[in-house]
């Protein structure tokens, strides 16, 4: 298992995480159904506006699913930032992970590692976290 993703999208997510600091940022990446190629970045508003929690607004969430359906796409990646801790799923992330087919990407804006960045990907299925390789393409 691995996540293949473009440098452009990685950079855009890291920039979003810095722009929204100290709040957590979040979003999704859509790709053609069955392709496992996350191509279309959809930054979302963190309705919780919080440094320790994120949530897609329920109305935006439905719109995202509808848009994906209309374009024969699916939600391949769900991402969010951790502001002060490592880019690893928290207990809350695991408890609420509702998309067993998605790559869960975490980035961290924690200062201890600046200017280095963390960009990691996981599967979260039935409460079990499995890290996967991230392959960044040009």
């Amino acid at each position, binding site marked *: 298992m691995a996540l293949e993703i473009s440098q452009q999208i990685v950079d855009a997510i890291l920039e979003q995480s810095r722009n929204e600091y100290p709040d957590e940022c979040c979003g999704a990446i859509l790709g053609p159904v069955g392709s496992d190629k996350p191509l279309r970045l959809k930054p979302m508003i963190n309705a919780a506006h919080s440094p320790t929690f994120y949530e897609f607004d*329920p109305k935006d*969430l439905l719109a995202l699913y509808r848009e994906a359906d209309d374009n024969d796409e699916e939600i391949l990646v769900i991402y*969010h930032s951790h502001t002060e801790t490592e880019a690893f799923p928290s207990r809350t992330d695991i408890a609420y992970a509702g998309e067993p087919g998605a790559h869960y990407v975490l980035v961290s804006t924690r200062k201890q590692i600046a200017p280095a960045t963390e960009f990691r990907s996981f599967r979260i299925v039935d409460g079990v976290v499995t890290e996967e390789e991230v392959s960044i393409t040009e």
Partner: protein
Amino acid sequence: MSIEVRIPTILRPYTKDQKAVTAEGANLSSVISNLDSQYAGLGERLLENGSLRRFINIYVNDEDVRFLGGLDAQVKDGDSITILPAVAGG
């Protein structure tokens, strides 16, 4: 009364992998009871202590049921219900 209910991936083990099922009822509460009678265990994934779960979103014809009276939300023949797990975490 026939209501289409769209089931998210994570709950499809309850519906034999069906993406959409049909249910009956005049309001959301009775639709959920009807769903649970057809697909045992599904109701508990939607309700907690008799209330809608905080991190499950249910929509009637694209409107969040939280703005339609929650479990009392009225539904009628031909309506479509969509269930989506919240995308949330810490």
